[in-house]
């Protein structure tokens, strides 16, 4: 075991945040905020969950991100003021704007958009040039190919081009799988980096039928890991794909593959790299989600750092987890291209001697867009963007999605389904991607697609009994608040329209949801049937795609629904995952 690592990692896990920026200089050259003090002998850059956002974005971080049980009050389950306090970020600073929802609308105007691949390219190139040739790696944690109308239309091919130009050397996946095996393989044939996933295996039937696999003996569909040389050192990068692809998405996209966390197989892989390959460091490039990674880090030994994603948590400092073999650092690098993780390692023989980590907000206004990447973005957008650029409406208020229970953009989507599909109740998935639009900004089809672009967008109208509706809410709620992180799938609570309810997150499945009422105040009756509209079903549906329903609703110019989302929380009064008014 590697007890020796314990000594240094704990002491030096502390990272420096970007100092609070007083004000961003418009169109400045690469700002000095990105001049990092040199440290160690290897630099690993980490991007994750960019959701195909080629252009800079507004993205409001959550005001509700509740942790229950042992996770209560712990990162990533901190929002607003509690988040700023925990990580020592000055209120009203640029960092406060990037990392939290505090005073979002005011700060958005002041500090502008974040991310964008042309801006990321400039930053990545600078950070790589700073450490010199052969001293750095660029890794992507997945959800790179999905999230825009463009990416959905070309099945992620645009993002493969962008990834190649950006210089991504290894990635793992999640939504990538929802394009199906053929599109995935076609994209990977064009991808210059490696696609790594230790936890995707052939089903027994597929193995029996000789389905394609990286390693037919073990049934591993993809290469599980790769060893990269940095200077005179060797670093093992292991890929961990989203463990619950066939559960969270229609199984028809991945019929031959079975997933799972697979920590025993992971342990064998880590041990093999340590013992036989004699690597100096082991990095897990993970799409587990942060709570799952924190639990995994306590069980699997020998991993130096988990570079995490999926749950879209922008966490400025790594969390140190102690396990039987020493310690493992766990990070999560936010979403939508807002952040770039910079892991500087001081590698020694067979060990990591020291670590420094920063999660840099990518302030688009501080970075000159790289001309080559900008050209690529313009070229891939060109054939599609014309059809999607007409203004459908203006945002009547701040439109955002992220939050455990509701977001104003999802209220809009639910309203669209209620009116266009003539239903009593609407259900909309609690995705964590989807952009933010400021009040008064125009809404185009491209914006609507950025909230809805998936490969199973068909709407449905179904008859469900009150007790079936409650069961669905309970089931999704348990995916979010199960006390065991390994039983969580990530994502947020299903959004509802025409329905209000009370939720007690700290309860157990079957006991969290109560007081279900229709918009007219009447209690839902267990045996009575209701007309329910929804989209993104794991079962095949035939209805119009959700983006057309939303566009119709917006074009019709109906008066905005300003009702508060009807979720009452119970038993979490002092939870640090809920932002209080004005904080």
């Amino acid at each position, binding site marked *: 075991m590697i007890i020796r690592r314990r000594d240094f990692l704990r002491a030096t896990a502390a990272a420096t945040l970007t100092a609070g920026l007083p004000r961003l200089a418009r169109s400045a050259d690469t700002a000095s905020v990105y001049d990092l003090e040199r440290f160690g002998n290897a630099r690993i850059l980490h991007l994750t969950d960019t959701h195909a956002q080629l252009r800079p974005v507004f993205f409001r971080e959550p005001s509700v991100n509740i942790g229950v049980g042992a996770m209560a009050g712990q990162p990533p389950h901190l929002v607003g003021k509690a988040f700023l306090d925990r990580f020592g970020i000055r209120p009203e600073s640029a960092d406060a704007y990037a990392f939290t929802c505090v005073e979002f609308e005011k700060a958005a105007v002041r500090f502008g958009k974040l991310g964008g691949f042309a801006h990321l390219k400039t930053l990545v190139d600078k950070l790589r040039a700073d450490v010199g040739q052969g001293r750095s790696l660029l890794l992507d944690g997945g959800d790179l190919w999905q999230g825009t109308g463009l990416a959905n239309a070309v099945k992620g091919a645009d993002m493969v081009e962008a990834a190649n130009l950006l210089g991504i050397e290894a990635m793992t996946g999640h939504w990538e799988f929802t394009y199906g095996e053929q599109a995935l393989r076609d994209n990977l044939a064009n991808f210059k980096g490696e696609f790594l996933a230790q936890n995707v295996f052939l089903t*027994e039937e597929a193995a029996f039928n000789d389905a394609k696999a990286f390693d037919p003996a073990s049934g591993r569909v993809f290469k599980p890991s790769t060893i990269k040389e940095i200077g005179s050192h060797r670093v093992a990068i292991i890929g961990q794909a*989203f*463990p*619950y692809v*066939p*559960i*969270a*998405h229609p*199984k028809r996209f991945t019929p031959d593959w*079975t*997933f*799972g*966390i697979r920590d*025993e197989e992971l342990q064998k892989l880590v041990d093999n790299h340590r013992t036989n390959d004699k690597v100096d460091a082991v990095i897990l490039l993970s799409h587990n989600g942060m709570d799952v990674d924190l639990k995994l880090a306590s069980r699997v030994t020998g991993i130096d750092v988990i570079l995490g994603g*999926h*749950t*879209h948590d922008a966490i400025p400092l790594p969390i140190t987890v102690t396990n039987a073999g020493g310690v493992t650092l766990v990070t999560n690098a936010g979403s939508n291209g807002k952040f770039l993780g910079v892991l500087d390692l001081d590698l020694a023989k067979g060990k990591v001697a020291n670590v420094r980590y920063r999660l840099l907000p990518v302030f688009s206004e501080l970075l000159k867009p790289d001309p080559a990447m900008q050209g690529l973005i313009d070229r891939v957008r060109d054939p599609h963007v014309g059809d999607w650029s007409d203004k459908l409406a203006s945002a009547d208020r701040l439109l955002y999605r992220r939050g455990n229970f509701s977001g104003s953009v999802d209220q809009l989507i639910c309203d669209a389904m209620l009116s266009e599909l003539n239903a009593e109740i609407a259900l909309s*998935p*609690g*995705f*964590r*991607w989807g952009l933010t639009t400021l009040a008064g900004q125009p809404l185009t089809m491209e914006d609507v697609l950025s909230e809805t672009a998936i490969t199973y967008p068909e709407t449905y109208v179904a008859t469900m009994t009150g007790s079936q509706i409650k*069961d*669905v809410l309970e*089931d*999704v709620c*348990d*995916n979010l608040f*199960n006390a*065991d992180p*390994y*039983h969580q*799938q*990530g*994502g*947020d609570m*299903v959004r509802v329209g025409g329905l209000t309810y009370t939720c007690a997150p700290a309860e157990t*499945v079957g006991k969290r949801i109560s007081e279900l009422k229709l918009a007219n105040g009447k209690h839902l009756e267990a045996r009575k049937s209701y007309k329910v509209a929804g989209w*993104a*079903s*794991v079962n095949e549906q035939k209805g119009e795609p959700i983006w057309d329903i939303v566009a119709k609703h917006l074009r019709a110019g109906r008066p905005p629904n300003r009702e508060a989302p009807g979720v009452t929380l119970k038993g979490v009064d002092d939870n640090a995952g809920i932002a209080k008014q004005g904080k």
Partner: protein
Amino acid sequence: MSITTNEFAETRRMVLKGAGVAALIGLGVVSFDARPALAAANDAYPKEAFKQKNEADAIKLLYGKTAEPSDKVKMDAPEIAENGAVVPISATTTLSDVTSITFLVSENPIALIASYRIPDGTLPSVSNRIKMAKTSNVIVIVEAGGKLYSATKEVKVTVGGCGG
């Protein structure tokens, strides 16, 4: 799947023996109409154990004793089932003198899923696929040296969807 002829059952039994999986005395998932052939090859079919609603009663009727948890019983089961109708569960053990391996699901209408006899000299390793209606503990019992050892894991069954 439904196996109806004794001839087929005989062939199947030999295949299973040859594969080192040992003779089956019951199955939770397939309808099985070949009891006489199996009964002849094994001890009496544990009819009563297969009627019990909870695992403790089933274990008592099957073995007449209780099991102690052991980390020498290794169960491989998913955290969340990809399909509740076909959940792959396997068990192995480093214990010696293993004579049987039994699978139970607490929340199934009938708790006992299957019990496998392990003949002398056979590797104590069994894989099977079981049906689960809802989230439940899955219990593996290993009978070794006349004593019972167990491993338990909760397997979640969900309707799915809405992932981030």
